[in-house]
């Protein structure tokens, strides 16, 4: 009964607080919303970068050149071996295929090529390297290994292109991490500051409650409840904002991206998972922020 009464009292106190000083609460909620919205955008941007990188990475190809005149059977065995080793698709390119492709790629020499009697191009195997192994180091190791196989004359894997791509990836990942860290730090700091300030504006109330015999817990609970509610509300508003943003900017972005990468990357800005994370993050932020803030004043 007494616990229930206390809960009721805490709830009433929270409600009264919000009703009588809507201004302070509005500011806390707005701050939380902005912080969470920004964090959500950062998350979305990160996901976008990841999928962009993945799709760009699809272009990383390793070509394993085989001995001229190697029997198709042996070539096929080699192909299968490489496929297993790499864990990605391996395609056999016969000399005829290779010549055809060259002609397609360089129309100006096509006439010249068809007039050849002998096909000077060797057979080769093209490997599509799966995501995890697209680093320059992994590719170099793979090339070395393949080179040692019988029947293999040379391995080409666009060392420079891969290195460049991985550098881009690193820059973007680093940038993303820095941006996310900055946003997170700013979020936590600003939310904590706002909640501190909102409690600071009510320090008299805390003092009075303590003077009439309130325990620290009694004082704390309404503030914590308030922080929790503010956080949840902030998370919900941030989700709504992201929804609105992805509704308005999404199609435009998707169009651009579809053009950019063959596969067509769907910029899923607002997943149910992200909504959950925003709500949870907001609740946690509000909770922690107000706990820390109110502790400061209880100690003083």
């Amino acid at each position, binding site marked *: *009964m*007494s*616990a*229930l*009464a*206390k809960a*009721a*009292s805490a709830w*009433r*106190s929270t409600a*009264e*607080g919000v009703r*009588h*000083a809507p201004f302070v609460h509005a500011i806390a909620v707005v701050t939380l919303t902005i912080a969470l919205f920004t964090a959500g955008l950062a998350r979305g941007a990160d996901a976008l970068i990841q999928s962009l990188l993945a799709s760009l990475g699809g272009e990383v190809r390793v070509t394993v050149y085989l001995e001229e005149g190697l029997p198709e059977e042996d070539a096929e065995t080699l192909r299968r071996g490489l496929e297993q080793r790499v864990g990605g698709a391996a395609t056999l390119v016969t000399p005829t295929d290779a010549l055809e492709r060259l002609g397609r790629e360089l129309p100006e020499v096509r006439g010249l090529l068809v007039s050849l009697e002998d096909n000077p191009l060797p057979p080769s195997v093209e490997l599509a390297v799966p995501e995890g192994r697209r680093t320059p180091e992994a590719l170099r190791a793979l090339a070395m290994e393949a080179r040692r196989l019988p029947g293999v004359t040379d391995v080409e894997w666009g060392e420079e292109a891969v290195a460049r791509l991985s550098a881009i990836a690193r820059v973007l990942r680093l940038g993303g991490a820095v941006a996310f860290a900055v946003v997170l730090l700013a979020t936590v700091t600003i939310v904590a500051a706002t909640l501190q300030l909102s409690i600071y504006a009510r320090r*008299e*109330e805390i*003092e*009075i*409650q*303590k*003077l*009439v*015999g*309130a*325990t*620290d817990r*009694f004082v704390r609970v309404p503030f914590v409840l308030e922080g929790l509610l503010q956080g949840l509300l902030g998370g919900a508003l941030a989700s709504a904002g992201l929804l609105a943003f992805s509704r308005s900017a999404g199609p435009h972005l998707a169009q651009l991206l579809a053009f950019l990468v063959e596969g067509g990357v769907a910029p899923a800005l607002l997943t149910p998972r992200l909504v959950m994370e925003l709500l949870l993050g907001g609740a946690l932020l509000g909770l922690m922020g107000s706990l820390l803030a109110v502790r400061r004043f209880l100690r003083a």
Partner: protein
Amino acid sequence: MIEMFHVYKAYPGDPPVLTDINLRVEKGEFLFLTGPSGAGKTTLLKLIFCAEEATRGQILVGGRNVARIRESAIPFLRRNIGVVFQDFKLLPHRTVEDNVALALDVLGVPRLQARERVRGMLKRVGLEHKADVLPLKLSGGEQQRVVLARALVNEPTLLLADEPTGNLDPVRTLEIMDLLRDVNVRGTTVLVATHDSTLLSRYQKRTVRLEAGHIVSDEDGVKAARRMVGA
């Protein structure tokens, strides 16, 4: 109920506000604390309910040594002490009823039950019609009575009233003093800090006089009253 032994109180950097205070208040007693402005009356009351810590000396309240009380035990001490603050200390954004109910809320009294007691108490101080008003909208005397209601609503064993009639007209003053006497008769120990010499002579209770931090006299009611009239 209250015992003080060689109590000193000095705020850092200032000369002491209270010097060598020795005082014994029995359970059920009614005591006036008087003395000029700045003598240390409020400070003495603050020591009793742990709003300030004594610099030296021992203070027993209800047999408990509050000079060495744990921080976490203070709320429970305060729940047995009703305090009328000289500067009121009302929550500005809660109604009168909520302000008074606060003293019951901290005890975990269910709202419905609390409501009844609060209404009853407000009636006794003549403010039943102001229950739903914010303190900022009350006159000085009305606020003072709200504070008194809050102090008394949970039937404390000890009441500390700091200038409880400073903003009241003579008629209200008598009403409130009668209320305090009532409470006292029912067993609550009452300490009233006041400047009002008409109160002292009218009620003829034990009177402790502070001057510049020293107890300069401690007389029973009749003697004190006689001196007041002589002055």
